[in-house]
Every structure is written in C-alpha cells, then in structure tokens.
C-alpha cells in the first residue's frame, strides 16, 4: 500500500470542491476538499497536507490570508493558488511571497500536474 501524499483543496466554489479531488486522486494523490480557510485550519488534515490548492477570493479568510496564517504557524506547506480572476498582476506577487504556482480557472489537468510536480520537487 503506497501512502499517497495528501493534497487539500480549499475553495468556496462547490464545483471545484467536487471535481478537483477526483482528478487529484486520478493523478495519484490523496485529496480532501474544504469550503473555507477556516474549515481547513480546524481540520485534522492540516498536519498531513503536503500540498495546498487554494482559491484566492473567498468569503471570510482569503487565500493569501491563509498563506500568511500558515507562515505564522510555521507550517511550510507548498501552495498552488487557483483563481477565476484573470489578473496577471496577481501571479508574480503571489509567487514572490512563496507560492509554487498560480493557476487561472479553468485550467487543464496538465497545468495542474506540472504545478503539483513543482510542489513535490525537493527544494
């Protein structure tokens, strides 16, 4: 039994929460979906999560807010941001602040795969 790395998905959009874990499993990861940052922080998965796929704009705590929170808690989880706002200026800022990648919705499975590869590449 291969222990699959856990990839957590935090997005307020239901269709993402439904569809993305299935794809992640097809790609060979374990997957958990959370509808908000708060839910994720409160869950047991926080410690097991090896990679976080995080929506930027969410009601309550936003994606970047969660990123800062994790930094404060010294949880160094690689983060792949996803967003439906196609704002090119956002991406470099997020990468600068330590994100692995920023994907614009809708994104292809290939793009997701590459981002995850980067996230799991030993630094």
């Amino acid at each position, binding site marked *: 039994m291969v222990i699959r790395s856990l990839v957590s998905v935090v997005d307020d959009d239901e*269709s993402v929460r439904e569809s993305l874990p*299935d*794809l992640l499993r*097809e790609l060979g990861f374990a997957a958990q979906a959370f509808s908000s940052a708060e839910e994720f922080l409160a869950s047991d998965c926080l410690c097991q999560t090896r990679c976080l796929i995080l929506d930027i704009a969410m009601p309550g705590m936003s994606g970047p807010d969660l990123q800062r929170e994790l930094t404060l808690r010294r949880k160094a989880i690689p983060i792949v941001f996803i967003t*439906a706002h*196609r704002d090119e200026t956002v991406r470099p800022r997020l990468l600068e602040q330590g994100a692995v990648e920023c994907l614009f919705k*809708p994104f*292809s499975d290939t793009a997701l795969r590459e981002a995850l590869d980067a996230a799991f590449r030993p630094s």
Partner: protein
Amino acid sequence: MENELSRLVDALPGLVWTARLDGKIDFLNQRWREYTGLSVEEILGADEEYGRGWQAAIHPEDLPGLLERWRSILASREPGEMEARLRRFDGEYRWFLFRACPLADPSALVVKWCGISTDIEDRRRAEEPLHAPWWLRSSERERHFRSIGDSIPALGALMTPAGEIELVNRQVVEYLGATLEELKGQAIGESFHPDDRPDVIARWREAVEAGQPYDFESRLRRADGVYRWFHTRGFPLRDTEGRIVLWYLLHADIDDQKRAEALLAGEKRLLEMVAGGHSMSGILEALCHFVESTASGCYCSVVLVDPSGTHLEHGAAPSLPASFITSIIGRPVNVDSGPCAMASYLNEQVIAADLTSETRWAEYAWCPMALAHGLQACWSTPISSTAGKVLGAFALYYDEPRTPTSLEQSLIEQFTHIASIAVERAQSDASLKRSEAFLAEAQHLSSIGSYLWRAATDEITWSEETYRIFELDQTAPVTWERISTRVHPEDLPAFKKQVERCRRDGGNVEFEFRLQMPNRSVKYVRLVSHSSRDESGQLEYTGTIQDMTERRLSEEALGKVRSELAHMARVTSLGALTASIAHEVSQPLSGIITNASTCLRMLAADPPNVDGARETARRTIRDGNRASDVITRLRALFSRKNATTESVDLNEATREVITLLLRELQRSRAILRAELADDLPPVTGDRVQLQQVILNLLLNASDAMSGVDDRPRELVIRTEIDESDRVRLTVQDAGVGFEPQSADKLFEPFYTTKGGGMGIGLSVSRSIIESHHGRLWAAPNDGPGATFSFSIPRRPENIKRARSLGATWTPAVMDAQHVMRNP
C-alpha cells in the same frame, strides 16, 4: 385902356388867362394868382421856362393829360375844354374846368388864345358816380380811409404804386412814432428790420409788377426800438379802367403768435434732437441757446445730479463763464451749497430775485461768487424724471435783479420738461448702449449671433455677430434668398425643410448645418431657436446662431484620437462587465474542464472506471447548467445595481444624453433633431439606467447611419404622451434599417448587425425598460432606416414611499430572466 382892361380882367369872377399861339401862358389875372398863391414871376416862369410856371399849380397826376389836351386844342384852333385839379394857396386841390378860345384878327387869323378856369369841384363831386370805389372818389378818400383805418386793430397804409406813402392810419403813427409827413420823408422800407428789409422791398416790387396781392411777414420797429413781427397784406386798388391806382396795406401784429410758433418749433427741434440720438450735452446746449434767444437777457445753465445722487455734474451752460460753472460743479446736493443744489435737493423751484440782498448759501459763499461774475438773479428749477427722480436743475441767470413773470414761469416749465426728456433719454440710451455693447462683445467673444424672425412677414433681424458669421453686408436687409446663398448646398434642402417646418408648426428647434462662404470655405453653425407669438398672435422665432467652426476644426483634427478614445471608453465599460462575467463563468467552467479531464482519465484507466467516468460526466453537465445560471444571476445583479426610484423628467434626461453625445454625433455627421414635448409628465424609475437606454438607442442609430452617404444622416429623438397615456420616447434614424422578420431578434443578447458591436446593448436596454414596467420595440421606417421606441407609465400621482426597492424590482429580475432565457 390897357389899365382899364387889366382891372376889368382882374375883376372878372373867374380865373382868366391868355396864351400865345405856341401855347405858352403870357397872362394870368389877379384872381388866378390869389387863388394859387403864386406870384406873377412864379406863374409865368423865367427864361426858357417862360410860360410854364403855372404848371406847378396843377395836380401832378392831371398835368400830363392836361398838357396833351391843350396841345390838341392848340392844333385844332377851335375852342376847347380841359379838366384838372388846381392847387389852392392852402395846398388843397380842387377840380377846375379850363376853357380856351382862339382870338382871331380881322383876317380870321388866330393870333392868341384866351381862357377861363372855373371851379367845378362841387359839380364834379356831385357828378362822381356813387358806386365808384371810395379810393377813386378823391374828395372822400382820406375821410373814408380814416373812418375805416383808424378803427381796425392793425396798421393800415395807402401807398402809391411807386412805393410812396399816401395815407397811414392812427395806429401806424402811434406804433412807428412818426407823423405821415415824417414817414413820407423816409426811404422805402426804413421801418422794417434790417434783416427783413431787402426781402420786403423785393416782394413789394414783385407784387406791384405782377399786380398781385402782397403777402409777407416781417419785423417792424416800434417807437421804442423793439421789433415786432407783422403779417402784411397789400391789396391793389384799381380805377374804373382796371389800372392800379393805389395799394392798401394792412400790417397785423403776429408777434405773440410768432413767438409761440418759434417756441413750438424750438421745442420740436430739441425733441427731434432727443429722438435723433444727439449727445445729451449737445441737446442741453441747444436748449440753453434757444432759451436765451427766446427770453432775451438771460443766461441759461443745466446742471445734473451725479449717478450717486450726491453731487452736481456739468450739463450745459454755453453762455456762462467757465469759471462760474466749474465752481458750481462738484458741489454737494444740499440746501446750503447753492440754488441749483438746493433745487435738486428739495425738488422745488428756488428763486433768488436779488443776489445783492440774498442771505442763503452763505456757508458756501455762493452769492459773492455769482455777483463776481456779474449775475444778480438766479431762478433754479429741478429737472425730474417721469418717475419723480431729480435728474438735475435748470437755471436762468440775469445780470439785474429780477422776478419771473408768469410767462417766464411757463417757459421755464416747458424747458425743464424738455430737459428732463433729454436727460432721461440720454441716460437710458447710455445704459442701453452699454448693455448693447456688452451684448455685442459677448456675442463676438462667444461667436454667437442672435436673430428674430417674424414668420408671417419674413421679416428677419440679425445681430451684428450674425452678420459677421454669415459674412453678409449689414446695410442690406436680410432675406431668405441672401441666407440661402450662404447655406452649404448639401445642407440647403434639409435647411429649407427645417425652415418650412418651423413656419408651419412653430415649436422650438435646434439643429446644425454648414455655411459655405464665397471663397468656398465652410463654416459649421449651430442654430437654437425658440418660438413665441407676438401681440397680434403672429409666429415669431428668436434664436441664436453659433459659429462652431473653430471648435469643429480642432475637433476634426482630434477626430481620430477622439474616436479611439470613445472606442476605448466603450471597451473599458464592456471590460468591466466581461471581467465580472468571466469570473462568475470561470468557476463552473473550471469544474467542467476538471470533470472532463477526470472523466477522460477514468476511461483511459485499465480497467476503465466507467462508473466514475459516468459520475464525472454527469457533474460536467450540471456545471454547464450552473454556468448558465451564473449568467442569469449576473444579469439580475446588473439590474439591481444602482437601482433607485425617483421622479425622472425624461426630457431633461434626454437633453443630458444629447449633450454627452453631441460630439460623437457630430463626428459621425449625424444631424440630430430633438422634438421634446413641452408638457411631458415625469416617470418613476432609475434615471441613469434610462439614460443608458437612450444613449444606447442614439449610438445604435448613429452607427446604423455610418455608411449612409446618399442622404442626410437625419436622426430624430422625440418624446410624447402616447395613446394609452404612457410616456414614449422614439429614436428614428435614416440608417441601414433591418428586415421586419428580425425585429424581435434585435433584442437577443449577442445578436448584432454591426461589425464592431457586441450585441448586448439592446437586450440590456429592453430589460431595463421592462424593469420600468415599460416596453421597448423596433420598427422599420417607411423610408430608409429604423425607429426604436420605448414607452413607460407616467409617475402615479401619489406614489407610496413604502413601495421600496425590493418590491418594485423583483419583477425586473423576472423580466431580465425572461429576456435571457427566451430570446
């Protein structure tokens, strides 16, 4: 014998004489001598005059006839008779019969003449026919003349045709202060004013020559040296043969009448100066001169109250020394500084009859100053406007103490009145000129001219600036023909149509057209006009013409930049919309793609995970539906955004949009005509959203005409109340139009007939109108182009405040869904 005979002859009771054959008198008896009072020597005459001296006793008028008769008697050598007036020693002429008989010697040869003269005065008087005019009855002439002449209220005189005075009546003697004898000794015309004399004489000669009545006005010097005007009429008096024997002259005193006429004429002249727009100082000076010439011996001045009402200003004083006037000017308007200041202050007449004993105005030492200029009396009268405001004072000065007579008071009253007219007129003229100049300057600066057009008479009045814009000569009247020569040929048909429409329908208009100058240069002008009815109900247009050329030229220079900017503005607003659409749609799309990818991977696995794939495919479909829902939600969101209800004046809202769009319309060469109903009731709704609709309709219309070059790009926007009492707005273009069957498709989202269009405008517009409980529809025109209209209910009289946003707007969302789902 000789002596006896002499005694005998002398004693005869008649005037006896003898003459030689040649007719010369060689003897006159004593009675002859006594009667005439002449001596023998005087009667016979000396030397070559011998035998003619007696003629001096014959009336000069009768002498030529007498001598002629005498010569014929001599020639006939037969006894004969003659009649003539003979002067008695006392100067009186009496008629005598002169009888002469030839004295023959024995051989019957005539050697001498002897004659006898008999007084026939009484007989002749008796013989004078009673119907003969009095002037021919010499005996009665003077008595008659005096009985009439002395009793008439005129100067009367009898004159010989030679211009010698024969008789004058008592009034002449009294008026001229000269006796008849003195007058007879005067040169002709001497009593007349020197200025009139040449004319008097010339007219008299003319009359005598033509035998026509003499009629003339002239001044006659009275005994005290004063000249008065007289109207003289002369009638010729004729003898029985029609010859003029005398002139009867009547001089009627018309001085008072003349004075009144002169006063009236002066007044008229001054008022004409006022009406003719002469300068106020010129008029007041003329007034002073006139008063001075009318009321002789006075000096006249007019001072004015300055605009602040506190000090005196110079008006006119042509005959007073400058030093006197300058010392008055600037004095404060009060009771102390002088008579004019006092009169102005109190609005009452101030009479200072004797300045030597005057005690007023001592504080300002006014009297010593006036006395130093030789003035001893001053009468100052306030000049008041019709509204009762004191404008200044009118003053008369005399160099001797004097109190005004009632005649002078009435003169003062008259001239004060004229002065008030002149001053008031000048002041209102000045303010009018100021405002005219201001207006002209403003018109010039803004390149806006104005005009007035009376439709019934086609009388057109232009301001200076309008002439300048049209580059037409100001001196000739404005006609449609002249205007037509300036309107650009391409715009002329539309221009004429517009003019005819105005003439027919009235109403307000606003449109733009081009002018073409003789040098082919083109001007862009904008016309705004307002119609009204004059007193007689005739249609009148007042309006402005604005020269937009400079603005237009710089606009066209920037044309490309501006159109790009306009495009960018549209892209930006659409960009904002697409960004939010994109965000909302991307979410389900993301799900769709992720699910589809998962599905493919599950099918590609070995063995294929068909159940998983089926599940993900199902989710894909569901996400597709969700994307559609998102768009619907977006639309609802869009409709709710900024939704406010207020009372909206659609005309005003339309005008604002037109203002925003004017340049864009100009750029696309669309000619916009706004026909906004005057009494449009307000509607309830969201002003900005309604304006978006209007903007959208106008832009669509303008775009629809962008390719039109074979006809004017006419664009009409109209507001009105429709048949079902709703407010309707219509936009009519002359563009490419559309097929009737596609009328409904126009309102589908993303349906477009335009190359660069997004096709979202009309559908959004329709949803907005429907959210206002209204209707938006399109119809092709009879001619080229299309008409888009919407109608919405008018604002209820008593709208309930409680009917808040939610309740009002829920149907709007429903309508929007209806539009989106049911294209």
